[in-house]
């Protein structure tokens, strides 16, 4: 039994996964987290620092880390990379003026060694706004098709209405489960 197998077995027992939620400021990361957890979303202030929530979902214990996306905080993102099972990249689909920033930041994360095994979910958030770009347009703008190093999926969603948040989370959990937890 190799060390990896032992580690896998240990994780399997706990069924615990660590999700890191990043994205530019104003993308809606905290709103997604709170909506997913069933909390009030009307009083959210821009995140100075980070939020962490542990919640049960389909028998899994999800530790979701939501780190502020302000330019001055992005240099601290690296402190949260360790043992991340999935990266959730949140995009403000209506923020057409900063898509190139968004693309640049995302691709700089994907070359990080400590995120190399992580599943990538891209949330095309704010689909409730009529001026938002579609998931396909975001996929092209962020050049997601060039990503060969990570399992990825883009999911359109709206944190305000809650639409498709569960779909995305279900995919993340399934993808991690099929990767990490060995099936007996």
């Amino acid at each position, binding site marked *: 039994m190799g060390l990896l197998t032992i580690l896998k077995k240990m994780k399997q027992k706990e069924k615990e996964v660590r999700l890191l939620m990043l994205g530019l400021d*104003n993308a809606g990361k905290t709103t997604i987290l709170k909506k997913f957890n069933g909390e009030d979303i009307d009083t959210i202030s821009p995140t100075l620092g980070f939020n962490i929530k542990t919640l049960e979902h389909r028998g899994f214990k999800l530790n979701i880390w939501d780190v502020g996306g302000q330019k001055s905080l992005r240099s601290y993102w690296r402190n949260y990379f360790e043992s991340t099972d999935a990266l959730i990249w949140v995009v403000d689909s209506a923020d057409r003026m900063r*898509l190139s920033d968004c693309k640049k930041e995302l691709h700089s994360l994907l070359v990080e060694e400590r995120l190399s095994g992580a599943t990538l979910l891209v949330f095309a958030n704010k689909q409730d706004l*009529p001026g*938002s770009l579609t998931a396909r347009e975001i996929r092209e703008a962020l050049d997601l098709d060039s990503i060969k190093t990570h399992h990825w999926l883009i999911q359109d969603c709206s944190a305000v209405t809650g639409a498709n948040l569960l779909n995305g989370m279900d995919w993340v959990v*399934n993808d991690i489960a099929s990767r990490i937890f060995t*099936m007996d």
Partner: protein
Amino acid sequence: MADWQGNYSVTTTTEDQMSAFTDKLIKREEERQTQLQKRRLEESEQSFKIQDSVRNFLDSFKSERRDLETSLAESKSVESSKLVEHFDILSQRVSKLQRYVSESAMFLPPYELKTAQNLLTSLQAKIQEKREELLPKKRFAFKSSNKKADKRTVVSVGNKSEETAKDSKSEDDLVIELAACKFVGTSNKTLQKNGNEINQKDIALANLTDCVVLLYGAPSAIHMNKLKNCKIFSGPVPGSIFIRDCTNCTFVLACQQLRIHSTTNSHFYIHVTSKAIIEDCNGIKFAPCNWTYDGQDEDYALSGLSKERNNWDSVDDFDWLAADAHSPNWSILDESERVASWNV
């Protein structure tokens, strides 16, 4: 004699014992065999059960998948008014199927699991593709109606924002054309939009100089970029307002979140229900929002923004984390310097 008898009796007992022993052995062997057979039967039954449930899974997965593909293929013949519902049902069924797969993961061989998951992912992608093909985002339709709307405002404003917007498309930082609801690349104008044009929409303001922008209504979100010497007024925004690269401007805004970046020498008259933040800013002054217009209460009701809660003087500076000293980048606008009434 006694000895012989004794011996004899001993021998008999031994023989009796022996036969009894053999009987016992045979009996035990028989018992063992039946038990073994029973166990074998059970085992094969169990493995049959697993195989059965795998087969069951594969069958129902296949039929549901086929079914989904057929209804997806029939999407074209669905009435356009029912398309949204049609696609919603499809995605619901896919996520149900996804749940079925994960619940069955326990007994599925890894290969089957992988195959099922791949099929699901491709199905999801197909549905999304079809949806985007048949249900293009509203903004395409919205754009043409917006032109009409713009013409209506031409009477009062006489703007050319539609044409100038096209010119600015080539700007290097605007990779993608801005959404339909916008004012871009204008100077020395009074620009106005009313509730029927902007309610629940997201608005972009970019590259404006010496302009006055009046947004009467309750838009969902506003993005502002590169404004100079402008005055911006907006009704209540239930979401966030995002401002960057502005100088010498006055903003009169009501919103849930206010994010200000790389902005200098500007005054903010604000109503903010959470907290305003600034980053890379200096010379920013805040005052409470004091602009009123006819129909403002209705706009507040429509937006759902609280009229009572206003944290206009609670500002986070992301470049100033010391709690014991006040940030040098922003201050409260002295009451004597505040504009008391807006003639707009």
